[in-house]
């Protein structure tokens, strides 16, 4: 049995927010693929749970009147990757979450949990960063919107406060229209593994040149990151091997990988440079470019 001390099944978003605000030891449980494992391992920090599984309004994936793509915090990875709106408008989000764990984990795990638990290796984080998704958050004071840029504040930390509940992700049209995007997860195995390095790129072309590059990594710094230096270097450059090499060189200054049991810092840097070229190229090709 899991060492749960208190379990509150929320009956509405307001009820969940109230329960979370009321007790500073309480934590949200959604799909449970992280929280229940933490509990199984005996961690004390998830003993008081506010369960949002009955809040079906948080499962919704759709496009609103203004062309924003909305992904409910409780939508499972499988629901995301199979949804027509995702496939048509932000396919890189579906491709990213398709690399999480195995089928059973994807049937339960949520993008809400993947982002809110602050994991440095979160498979959905790179795609969220290149599409600059907004997080629509409910708190006792009301609703607020935060950008994914800056949402991660440290390893395993995000800018949520006690009483905050993520309702959904929102991708604005300006952040997906006209972009080609790609994600590559480098891991030791092809399934059931944590990324050694994850990399996503989104490219908007300006004629034959790169109009805008957005390049993001996981496990390459204390949080998932965007690469301002490499993105600046890419601006206005032609689609050539030399441009890709310049991006790969510039990215070294944007990242801060470390040595862990999974991989050494040097090896990670090698993967980071390689993926900068491979993923940028594929994103540009998906935007309609040729090298």
């Amino acid at each position, binding site marked *: *049995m*899991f060492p*749960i001390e208190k*379990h509150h099944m929320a009956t509405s978003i307001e009820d969940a927010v109230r329960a979370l605000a009321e007790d500073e030891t309480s934590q949200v449980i959604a799909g449970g*693929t992280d929280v229940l494992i933490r509990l*199984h391992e005996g961690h004390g920090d998830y003993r008081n749970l506010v369960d949002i599984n009955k809040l079906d309004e948080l499962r919704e994936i759709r496009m609103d009147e203004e062309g924003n793509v909305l992904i409910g915090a409780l939508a499972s990875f499988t629901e995301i990757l199979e949804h027509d709106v995702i496939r048509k408008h932000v396919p890189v989000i579906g491709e990213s979450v398709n690399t999480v764990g*195995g089928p059973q*984990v994807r049937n*339960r795990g949520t993008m809400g949990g993947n982002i809110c638990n602050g994991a440095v290796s979160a498979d959905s984080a790179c795609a969220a960063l290149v599409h600059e998704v907004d997080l629509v958050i409910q708190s006792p004071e009301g609703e607020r919107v935060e950008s994914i840029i800056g949402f991660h504040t440290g390893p395993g930390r995000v800018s949520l406060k006690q009483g905050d509940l993520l309702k959904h992700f929102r991708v604005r049209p300006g952040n997906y229209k006209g972009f080609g995007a790609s994600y590559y997860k480098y891991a030791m195995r092809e399934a059931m593994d944590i990324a050694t390095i994850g990399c996503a790129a989104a490219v908007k072309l300006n004629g034959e040149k790169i109009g805008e590059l957005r390049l993001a990594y996981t496990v390459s710094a204390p949080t998932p990151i965007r690469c301002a230096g490499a993105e600046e270097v890419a601006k206005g450059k032609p689609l050539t091997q030399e441009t890709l090499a310049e991006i790969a060189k510039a990215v070294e200054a944007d990242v801060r990988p470390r040595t862990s049991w999974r991989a050494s810092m040097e090896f990670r840097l090698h993967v980071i440079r390689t993926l900068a070229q491979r993923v940028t190229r594929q994103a540009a090709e998906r935007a309609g470019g040729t090298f």
Partner: protein
Amino acid sequence: MQKQTISLTVNDKKFTLDIDVRQSLADVLRKQGFTSVKQGCGVGECGACTVLVDDMAVDSCIYLAVWADNKKVRTTEGECRNGKLSPVQQAYVDAGAVQCGFCTPGLVMTTTSFLERNRDRKVTREEIRTGHAGNLCRCTGYETIVKAVEKIVDVAEEE
């Protein structure tokens, strides 16, 4: 500790159960005699506890029993009808995909879901492998398992 009453169907039979909110679905199913549900790793890696909840494969060891309230649960016990194995179960037997057998009930449920979700299309060998990546088998080396699945799905020609 908090008790709760849940109503669910397991293999088409209705159950109303008083459960402890700390229990996993795997705990509750085994207590009701559905011992095909194996607890292996306990952390959602090995898939030995795979059951279908509303026809979706889940690791029942990391699925709270309270979430099964008003849901339809399927285990491999319920897949045989009138003493006859399901096509998936029969394919495992015919392909010799069972050795020690501990992973088999979970794999059978994963295949059952895979089959139902890919009914109207051809699948590749690669898709069979990724579709079963959440189940570990330490005996067979997976070859016979993939062969069992190939017997019952529409296999696409490899490029």
